[in-house]
């Protein structure tokens, strides 16, 4: 019973492995782009594609029963709510700091000069 769906031909792992290398290269390449909505969406796109591949193929979630899929993949959706709330809170705190303490006077060094 346990081995059900776990003895796949090796081909799928090689494909997934190659795909992860390509996607990671793309992820790294976004670091050379200018900041903006395009770069942010590409970071998220490559991140989700890699995460999906790891969970679905390497962790075999694609072959598990729907009861297990929902029990494990369902609850993390709640994290999206936390992200939303904390981002609102974060902007509120930043506004308050700017209003009451003024903008930053920090003059940071550039890294890498020693």
């Amino acid at each position, binding site marked *: *019973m*346990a*081995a059900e769906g*776990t*003895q*796949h031909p*090796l081909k799928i*792992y090689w494909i*997934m*492995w190659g795909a*992860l*290398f390509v996607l*990671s290269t793309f*992820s*790294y390449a976004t*670091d*050379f782009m200018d900041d903006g909505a395009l770069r*942010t969406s590409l*970071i*998220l796109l*490559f*991140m989700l594609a*890699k*995460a999906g591949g*790891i*969970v679905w*193929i*390497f*962790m*075999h979630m694609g072959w*598990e*029963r*729907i*009861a*297990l899929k*929902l*029990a*494990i993949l369902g*609850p*993390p959706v709640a*994290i999206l709510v*936390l*992200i939303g709330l*904390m*981002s609102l*809170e*974060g*902007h509120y*705190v*930043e506004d308050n*700091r700017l209003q009451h*303490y003024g*903008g*930053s006077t*920090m003059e*940071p*060094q*550039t*890294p*890498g000069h020693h």
Partner: protein
Amino acid sequence: MSEAVLDSGAEAPGKQALVEDWSRDKQVFGVPWGKAMMWIFLLSDTFIFSCFLVGYMMVRISTTDPWPNPSEVFALEAFGYPVPLLLIAIMTFVLITSSGTMALAVNMGYRKDRKKTFWLMVATAALGATFVGMQAFEWTKLIMEGVRPWGNPFGAAQFGSSFFMITGFHGMHVSAGVIYLLVVAFRVRNGFYEKRGGNYEIVEIAGLYWHFVDLVWVFIFAFFYLW
């Protein structure tokens, strides 16, 4: 719902499968308990790492000081030029490679090829140890440049606390994984599981943990290093 379906472990189509699994008065998930428990542990770990990353997001949004540019902070000198995120990119590829060897080890485990399983798991652990070594180098470099959990010369003080907390907790997971993999690998080799019915499910369970560590790195790489 038919008894035959339950006994064979086959899954009914669609939503019916969910209802049947939860209502049949025995184990729900139809997987060995160790695997179900590992998944539930990983779910709880997901929440821990999410809290760290959300905390990092919150302090980064709310600080009025400029955030240090990770692209410059983590640049390394190579071929006479500073290459952004060089070491981090190499670490990413090392971890992905280790995920690949782990996936092959799980497959070889189910084929009961003990020798290949052992060596693939040792290779996975070695790549994991390499990753931790490079992380130690990264930490040393940053500490020598004056990055501390309470401040740094490059910008917002929260950068250091987020960095040490998130990568430290992840590095701890990788280190624990290396030990876990080596224990299982040597047990595979010395026939420990042969005495327990020759069941190599444990290789897949260890593999789940290892892939999860790689999975967390995907998110850390995107949110901490690239964002």
